[in-house]
């Protein structure tokens, strides 16, 4: 009897398993048809065709899609699809037309007149005009605006007055007609192009946001499903699952080939699995998984510059880091080639100045500090930092050469840490490694008191820290990190670097509108940074984008994956 009941349970159990498996097999069939490998077509080049869906993996949900509200990094590819600026950057980091067909700089260099395309429409069908451009820029200067990007428009004539409530309008923003806008700055300002680019002041619809008080922007529903002018419009979103975009039929540069773009949201590892199973078409692969994806018959692997770099910040206020000569010796003690190879599994590029090497601002003629531990030790000996035979650590006037070293809790930075520590131990420098999370790091770099007010930086805040930094096309963005003005409490010159010539050069780079002149000035500036090493630059990052071969025209570069999304098309082999 017992046996009977037992076997009945087994029967039930097996039946359940069979049902589950058959369910999975039955349900599996439709996608499998799609999975069929596309036929190779070696003899004939197939041109772009309209239609199809491309699925891109992103790592977290872009909860807020209003480009003027405190942005977070992951949304950049989504912005790129939804919005336009007056200008945009090209892969050589030059400004090229976007919503503006052309522009003209006045003789005194202070006024730039932008001529807009006359057939631009928002996703809801309303035409986009110069008034929308003015609205967008003026919003960034509004007294109640809390999106944190006033700095970009602060150089526009009358922006300060408007922000202070002393004017009803920003004087330097003049709408000449529906398709022409003149922007006047207080002084000639080359960074105005960055400000009006797609990455900063993406043009927003005045007919929707014009009536919304600025203090309500942060919580407005527009941020969930924004209306822009870009090649795609957002049609559906599900929190932490996906965003669906559809082609904007009236896109002024021509409708994109693909019909739909789906951003799937998931953890990197989950998305890697999804790619291997052909559930998503485009992912960013971690370096350690390159071999895995290369083996997939349908994968195209693109290795390209990531647009950011990693560096060691040296506290210039620290008693044994204040002298440029000491910093040079430390840089000489580091085997940056090996650090790069280890930290990035061979996918990074060592750098000698705090910028990405493909930029026109990167100093071509600076040698940096080639690895030479013996020379480093000698340099330190000559500076009076001699090894104390008892402790094995260098000392001078009773001060030990020992640093608190802060690292963000990331695999890559952990790999950097082990090598740097080894390198510095070789020249008798002691490091006390602290691994913290990013939020804690910001507290180390931007010291505050108990009430949250910024306090004066000091030698005790930190010795060294490791961080990554994403750089934009305009070197002006780095001014905040190296101008002595920004070492004030709350400023972003975390290492308290100060050099008069560098301060001067930032001003000169800003007011020079001619690219050749800017290049010369920026290179001089970066050469000084290379020589004085307020930061020890480590390496520029490399991104690995992997696409399914059904996606054609995918050419990721330093601008990211979707910069040319309008040129993509889908080849499903039919």
């Amino acid at each position, binding site marked *: *009897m*017992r046996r*009977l*009941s*037992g076997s009945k*349970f087994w029967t039930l*159990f097996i039946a359940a398993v069979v049902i*589950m*498996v058959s*369910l*999975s097999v*039955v*349900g*599996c069939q439709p*996608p499998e048809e799609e999975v069929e490998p596309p036929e190779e077509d070696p003899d004939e080049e197939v041109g772009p065709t309209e239609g199809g869906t491309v699925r891109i993996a992103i790592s977290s949900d872009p*909860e807020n899609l209003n480009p003027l*509200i*405190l942005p*977070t990094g992951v949304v950049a590819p989504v912005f790129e699809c939804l919005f336009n600026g007056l200008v945009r950057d090209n892969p050589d980091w030059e400004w090229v037309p976007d919503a503006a067909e052309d522009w003209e700089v006045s003789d005194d260099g202070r006024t730039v007149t932008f001529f807009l395309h006359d057939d631009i429409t928002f996703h809801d069908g309303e035409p986009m005009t110069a008034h929308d451009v003015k609205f967008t820029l003026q919003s960034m200067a509004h007294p109640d605006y*809390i999106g*944190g*990007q*006033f*700095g970009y428009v602060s150089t526009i004539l009358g922006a300060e007055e408007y922000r202070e409530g002393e004017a009803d309008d920003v004087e330097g923003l003049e709408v000449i007609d529906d398709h022409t806008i003149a922007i006047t700055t207080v002084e000639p300002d080359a960074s105005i192009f960055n400000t009006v680019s797609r990455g900063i002041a993406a043009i927003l619809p005045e007919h929707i946001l014009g009536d919304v008080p600025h203090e309500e922007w*942060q*919580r407005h529903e527009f*941020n*969930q499903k924004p209306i822009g002018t870009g090649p795609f419009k957002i049609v559906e979103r599900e*929190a*932490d*699952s*996906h965003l*669906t975009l559809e082609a904007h039929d009236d896109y002024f540069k021509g409708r994109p080939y693909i019909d*739909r773009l*789906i951003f*799937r*949201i*998931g*953890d990197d590892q*989950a998305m890697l*699995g*999804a790619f*291997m*199973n052909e*559930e998503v078409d485009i992912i960013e692969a971690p370096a350690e998984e390159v071999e895995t994806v290369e083996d997939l018959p349908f994968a195209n692997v693109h290795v390209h510059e990531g647009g950011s770099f990693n560096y060691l910040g040296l506290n210039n206020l620290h008693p044994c880091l204040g002298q440029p000569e000491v910093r040079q010796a430390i840089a000489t003690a580091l085997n940056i080639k090996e650090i790069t190879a280890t930290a990035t599994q061979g996918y990074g590029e060592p750098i000698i100045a705090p910028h990405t090497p493909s930029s026109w601002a990167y100093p071509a003629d600076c040698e940096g500090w080639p690895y030479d531990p013996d020379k480093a030790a000698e340099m330190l000996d000559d500076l009076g930092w001699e090894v104390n035979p008892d402790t094995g650590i260098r000392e001078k006037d009773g001060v030990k050469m020992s640093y608190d070293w802060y690292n963000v809790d990331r695999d890559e930075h952990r790999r950097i840490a082990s090598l740097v520590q080894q390198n510095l131990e070789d020249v008798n420098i002691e490091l006390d490694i602290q691994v913290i*999370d*990013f*939020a*804690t790091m*910001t*507290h180390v770099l*931007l010291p505050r008191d108990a009430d*949250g007010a*910024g306090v004066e930086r000091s030698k005790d805040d930190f010795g060294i820290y490791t961080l990554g*930094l994403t750089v934009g096309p305009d070197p002006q*963005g*780095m001014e*905040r990190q190296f101008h002595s003005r920004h070492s004030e409490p*709350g*400023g972003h010159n975390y290492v308290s670097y100060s050099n008069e010539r560098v301060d001067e050069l930032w001003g000169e780079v800003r007011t020079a509108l001619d690219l050749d002149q800017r290049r010369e000035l920026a290179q001089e500036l970066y050469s000084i940074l290379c020589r004085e090493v307020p930061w020890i630059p480590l390496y520029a990052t490399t991104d690995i984008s992997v696409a399914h071969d059904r996606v054609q025209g995918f050419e990721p570069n330093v601008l990211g994956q979707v910069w040319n999304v309008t040129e993509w098309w889908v080849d499903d082999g039919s």
Partner: protein
Amino acid sequence: MQDYLVRRLLQSIPLLIGITLISFAIMQLAPGDPMSTMISPDLDMEAVDARRAELGLDQPIYVQYFRWLSELLSGNMGYAVQSGRPVLQMIVERIPATLLLTASALAFAYIVAVPLGVISALKQHNLADYLLTLFAFLGISTPSFFAGILLVYVFAIQLNLLPTSGHYSIGEGLIGFAATADRLRYLLLPMLALGTRHLAQVMRFTRSSMLDVLNQDYIRTARAKGIHERVVVYKHALRNALLPIVTLLGLTLPALIGGSFIIETIFAWPGMGRLGVNAIFAREYPILMGLNVLVACMVLMGNLLADVMYAFVDPRIQYS
């Protein structure tokens, strides 16, 4: 019974407040606030401070806490720092996904575990018992994240039978039966990953509880009276053996929710667990506190439910 329920519910109020107080305090211990994860050199610090003030982060902790508590009592869980969206709304839109996952994992665990536990007990020291015991220990000692990765590797990537992640085929526009079948395919792996551990636990529990009961005098009496073995096992033994299992059910609930934090991340499942994981890294206090309240309520309710069910299955237990 009614009095008892009311008393228990009233008791849980100070408990809940205590839980929120402690978790609020613990969160403040970590340096850095929600704004600090957003800081970048491109941002004006003035604006960051303005946002801090707007969110009340510049206030002393006790002020922040009481402000949060009074808002909560009026049904407002606050607003997410990054998106500015109401926390309640963010949680509510993710509840269905989490509920589906945890409920099916729970159902799967119990439906499979109880019969297997009974078999294991009836066949004590037989091959079936040994195999099931082996399976149970494997299940208990395998962390759910590992089980999840293993399942994805085998069933999705190698065998290509099931999808690796997500909760339905996005953009396929499936309807009716096809849509349901599609969702079930996506549910299967995370459900197994989340449920297996509990399955193993419940099975062991059932087995020992069953063995315990089978050795009781009244079972021997029943058998001596010549009652059909099936009736002895199911009517006399199993019903009594289920008692501790019911308690376990109430306690499993919070563990399942905890497990869903990891499983939802592995399977890109758009539920509360993933919201929680992301909120931890982003220092989204409002979201974390919201989730905290919810999970605390579930734990308290789970315990209460277990106690109440106890009274139902065991008439000897009476609450007054």
